[in-house]
């Protein structure tokens, strides 16, 4: 009886120990995606779409209509949308879900983010094979909608979605930054707005606008508040300034060149203008639009996708109606060091497809992602803000051309400032650029903005901004964003640090289990020998 129970216990114990091994392998990599020969419409699929919007109901309405129209074409595919208003949150949620294999199917994203998603094997679907598929690819013969052919997507925007020599995303919308100007104030100060703003011009006029009366009010507007120049995204401010001056920022291999003399000189210049009260940032002071519309700002730099908030007749606003002042809004490119060769950032959402075990699910996801590039979706979404459709097909369509031609017809869909912002990008698409994308490029971008924020805050707080300060600033920002710990390309060893406690416990439990099994076997062997 004892022996029988011993054997049963031994088997159970061994089985339990073997079960613990199932926890050891980590997450299993997905197989490489292969385009199925046919779309299986007999099988129902539910796909998740994580979508970002600018807290704009018109945009969510476009998404909802796109989903409804797509589902009516492909009734076997249901699209569940999750809305985000913050790219950082989408990024973080995707990263969290990669480790548990619960990524969405389709996701609005930035190439910077995709570079990090791709650290997981076969996590993001490379799209070239899908692009080229005769039936389901771009402009494919079996599509149930009129999608763009590859050559009908603006090549520059498509090229921005190439990582490691393959397309990993489709561009969805494109925007840039621009300067929204209170033209009346500029002229009141005795200046005329040039076709292309320069940094010298914007600083000079801003300094003039910062002059106060004897009673402490500002001479320009008679108010107690005037911040002549406010910049929304200081990461773009630094990146564009460096690009325009041909200074280093980063390489495609991930080498960081941000901390250079041009950066330092730019920071010193910013410090001077913060000191005089001529310049501030969104993080310090609040939305440039709030100040511009209240007559408390001359130059407000923000995305073209923020145009509906800008100006005396802005359809969207966070300030009360009685705070508005009346003025003419001019729209210009961001300031340039070389007005003959302007350079401005290209930005805006792209869309990627996540790999799944079932290739049919991926194909369904791809069909929806591609549907977002149809004219109706492109034109509908582009009209909500100062966006540009990413297909020449949509840009040249009669509907979009009629939209542009209707500028000023009303202060809603045809709001002049919004259409001026779109036209600025349309006319200067060739002057836009993107920064290199690599795992860590998103952190580097944040670091670029942080340099400006720190300097501006330090000046406002009465700290001394000198060489010692700059050296410490570089060290602090490098540490904050872990820029000295960047990933090296796949194949290199990387120190991962101490094991997490759960892993330590699991390994310890395994070791103990096997020791006990061994002890039992030896004990049993010894008993048998003794017996015989």
């Amino acid at each position, binding site marked *: 009886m004892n022996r029988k129970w011993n054997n049963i216990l031994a088997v159970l114990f061994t089985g339990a120990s073997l079960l613990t091994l199932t926890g050891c392998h980590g997450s299993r990599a997905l197989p490489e995606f292969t385009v199925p020969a046919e779309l299986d419409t007999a099988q129902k699929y539910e796909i998740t779409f994580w979508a970002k*919007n600018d*807290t*704009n*109901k018109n*945009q*969510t309405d476009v998404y909802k209509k796109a989903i409804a129209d797509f589902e009516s074409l492909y009734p076997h595919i249901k699209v569940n949308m*999750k*809305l985000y*208003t913050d790219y950082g949150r989408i990024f973080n949620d995707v990263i969290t879900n990669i480790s548990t294999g619960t990524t969405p199917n389709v996701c609005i994203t930035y190439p910077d983010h995709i570079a990090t998603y791709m650290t997981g094997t076969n996590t993001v679907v490379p799209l070239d094979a899908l692009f080229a598929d005769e039936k389901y690819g771009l402009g494919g013969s079996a599509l149930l909608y009129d999608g763009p052919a590859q050559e009908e997507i603006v090549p520059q925007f498509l090229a921005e979605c190439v990582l490691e020599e393959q397309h990993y995303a489709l561009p969805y919308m494109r925007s840039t930054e621009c300067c929204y100007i209170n033209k009346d104030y500029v002229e009141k100060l005795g200046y005329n707005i040039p076709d292309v703003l320069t940094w010298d011009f914007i600083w000079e006029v801003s300094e003039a606008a910062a002059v106060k009366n004897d009673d402490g009010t500002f001479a320009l507007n008679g108010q107690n508040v005037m911040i002549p120049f406010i910049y929304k995204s200081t990461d773009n401010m630094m990146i564009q300034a460096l690009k325009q001056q041909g200074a280093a920022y980063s390489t495609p291999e991930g080498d960081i060149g941000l901390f250079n003399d041009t950066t330092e000189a730019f920071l010193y210049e910013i410090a001077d203008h913060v000191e005089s009260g001529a310049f501030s940032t969104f*993080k*310090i*002071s*609040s*939305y440039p639009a*709030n100040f511009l519309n209240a007559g408390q700002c001359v130059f407000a730099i923000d995305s073209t996708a923020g145009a509906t908030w800008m100006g005396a007749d802005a359809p*969207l606003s*966070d*300030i*009360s109606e009685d705070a508005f002042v009346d003025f003419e809004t001019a729209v210009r490119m961001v300031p340039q060091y070389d007005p003959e060769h302007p350079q401005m950032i290209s930005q805006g959402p792209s869309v990627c497809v996540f790999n799944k075990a079932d290739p049919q699910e991926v194909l369904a996801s791809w069909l929806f992602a591609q549907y977002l590039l149809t004219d109706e979706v492109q034109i509908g979404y582009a009209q909500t803000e100062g966006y540009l459709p990413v297909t020449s097909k949509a840009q040249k369509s009669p509907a979009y051309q009629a939209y542009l031609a209707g500028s000023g017809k009303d202060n809603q869909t045809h709001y002049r400032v919004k259409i001026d912002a779109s036209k600025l990008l349309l006319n200067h698409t060739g002057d836009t650029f993107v920064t290199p994308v690599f795992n860590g490029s998103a952190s580097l971008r944040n670091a670029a903005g942080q340099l400006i924020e720190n300097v501006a*805050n330090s000046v*406002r*707080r*009465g700290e001394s901004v000198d060489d010692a300060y700059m050296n410490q600033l570089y060290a602090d920002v490098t540490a904050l964003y872990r820029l000295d710990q960047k990933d090296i390309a796949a194949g290199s060893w990387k120190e991962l640090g101490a094991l997490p406690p759960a892993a330590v416990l699991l390994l310890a439990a395994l070791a103990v289990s096997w020791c006990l099994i061994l002890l039992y076997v030896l004990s049993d062997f010894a008993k048998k020998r003794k017996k015989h």
Partner: protein
Amino acid sequence: MKKTLALTLTLALVLSLTACGKDGNSGEDKKSEGVMTHDEYMAAAIDSEVVIETYVQAKQSWWEDKATLYTQDKDGAYFVYNAVCSEADYAKLTPGTKIKVTGYKTEWSGEVEVAEGAAIEIQDGNYVAPVTDVTDLLGKDELIDHQNEFVSFKGMTVEAADDSGAAFLYNWDGSGEDGSDLYFNVSKDGQTYTFTVESYLCDSSTDVYQAVKGLNVGDTVDMEGYLYWYEGVNPHITSLTVK
């Protein structure tokens, strides 16, 4: 000897009981050396360094080692935005926890707060602020004196949140979905104000979130929350009762 020892121990026990009373909920809120009173904090210039001792009343969010907190002492409130805080420490910041905050004062669209990057030190002490009714201060200049405090509003009427007549919106314009911030309008004495259920503070699983979703235009409501400011009064509501 034994009797003496017993008596001494008993006296020591009785004396130790006096340490059990909640620090800060009664009596003077004495600040440590170098720490500002609330009046001194409010008088401090924007961008000046501030050192405050205050008590966590609610936590809005933690994100990448930054915590945003509603705090208050006996004299007033302090909103602390994106202070440096590990996730482990954030878990310790239960309502009433005393903290020392060293940072810089700032003002953002009318909201006075301790700016991003402040340092937090958890201390011994506990205080949960009672609610202050500010219904009669709506529309008056004095309302801002209670900025960020835990306040109540009584007998307000729900108005339409948009032209469609909805009683509330997901996000400020209806662009959100279940789980997003809730915006709704309430009026008193002919003036309408926008109140918010901040979804990081009170998510969709909370009673207040469900209560706002159940509102009808015309309802009379009592509310409590934090007197947040964004381009004007914009309370972050934590409870709502339909009368």
